[in-house]
């Protein structure tokens, strides 16, 4: 299955992936409008910054996902390998935040933390392919098949 991978030798820590992610998930077609009207979403990708090293992390779409197994509400499910969240079912208990070994479940502060949210590989917005990879300025983030299932 195609996944998002980040090459930390290439990642510049510009955080534009976060910007593009928030925009892609905002439902707006214009980035200025998304951010200026507050409709931008919480980025599902997060840059980690270290001493000369940066990399982006987001949901790895594990084959054996602890977040899905642990979800008390049945709000997380796997659909064609993509771990999806049903925001109507999520009650914001954060068991998935507790479970995810990558720290990739994002608390949606845009709705006051009422639910969590996460990367769904842009399968449910209009981006077509993951916005982080499509817009990475240094091709550090790629969306590709690497033989994992």
């Amino acid at each position: 299955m195609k996944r998002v991978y980040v090459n930390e030798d290439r990642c510049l820590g510009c955080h534009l992936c976060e910007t593009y992610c928030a925009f892609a998930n905002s439902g707006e077609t214009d980035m200025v409008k998304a951010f200026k009207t507050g409709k931008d979403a919480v980025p599902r990708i997060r840059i980690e910054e270290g001493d000369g090293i940066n990399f982006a992390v987001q949901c790895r779409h594990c084959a054996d996902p602890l977040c899905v197994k642990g979800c008390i509400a049945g709000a997380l499910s796997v659909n064609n390998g993509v771990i999806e969240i049903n925001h109507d079912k999520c009650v914001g208990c954060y068991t998935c935040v507790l479970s995810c070994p990558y720290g990739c479940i994002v608390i949606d502060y845009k709705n006051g933390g009422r639910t969590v949210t996460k990367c769904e590989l842009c399968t449910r917005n209009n981006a077509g392919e993951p916005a982080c990879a499509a817009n990475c300025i240094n091709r550090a983030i790629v969306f590709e098949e690497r033989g994992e299932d």
Partner: protein
Amino acid sequence: MKYVIIGNSAAAIGAVQGIREYDKDGNIVIISDEKYHTYSRPLISYYLKGAVSEDNMKYRPESFYADNNVETMLGVKAVSVDSAAKKVILEDGGEVAYDKLLIATGSKPFVPPMEGLDKVEKKFSFMKLDDVKAVEQTVKQGSKVLIIGAGLIGLKAAEALEHYGADMTVIDLADRILPSILDSEASEIMMNHIKSKGIKFMLSTSVKSFEAHSAELTNGVTVDFDFVILAVGVRPNTELAESAGGSVNRGIETDKTQAVKNVSDIYAAGDCTKSYDITSESERILALLPNAFMQGNVAGKNMAGKETYYFNAFPMNAIGFFGLHIITAGSYDGEAYTEINGKNYKKLFTKDNALKGFILMGNKIERAGIYTSMIREHIALDEVDFEALKKNPMLMAFSRERRNEKLAGGVGNGN
């Protein structure tokens, strides 16, 4: 092959999914004394406060049983198991034969003997959907409520009832709230937070005697109420395992495949069982939904003939009260690292070059799973930049090799 599962909650669903991974054709029968489609027990408080509809409480989609070819016997109570004849005996006298049986019966409320309890007209447990439906019928704007038990269940009930403007008093025999998951500092922070919502606490006390609408406490105070929530504790439902001759010691005892000790072809999973906690290195009851699912899942795989072990259980909780969230895991044993900033609290416990447990509260909860994985994967602290990790959970603090393994190579297995 005929699989029979008694119970219809997380462990049972985990088992169905586990069985179906390896056996698409065998018959699966679910027997449950509740009449509902599988629903999430922990969501009952959210239902009561109107945060989730009954439909959205479904733990799996409406089509789950059909999709997985599961026969359900809902509203049917199993009373015993004849392990010699490989049969489950039902309350109505009926029998269900099995090749492999899973006992996933969960737990029941524990109500200690209290003088005059029978005089109390309106008293409720807070475990099942029917419990909250009954509360929903009873509660009125401004109802006076006595909640007995300042644990997870009692306080979740309080949070839900606050939605109705209930006038609540929470009592507990312990001297602090949530003693099972919080240390005393964190208990204090949380109690003050909940108090600020107008909820009264009386600790280190219990009911001396009840009248129909009041209770006299051992501390001499009398509390008036319209109804009582009984949330003292829970006990595993072990009767079926005992009737089958399985090994029971407070909880049902199983091996690492979730097979019940002392009998064959019977498995158990969920809140009715004991688990081996890797952080305290002891057998204990871990009544937690994620644990139940995973035990059930492992049981299901073994029932279908795929030998699988469950060996990394430990306590973990994610819960919030009135917007203040807590994430905890493991055992609170060893050297502690503490950060306190108002309601934001962090405590990490390390011992023998490993993270053993943590308590996170408020804005310290983000990315908690990275800490959890350190416990689960027994990450040696000298392999990581723990000084950085202490402050912020991050993958940067792991070695480059481990990062690559996590992010680029070894996709896939939280386990």
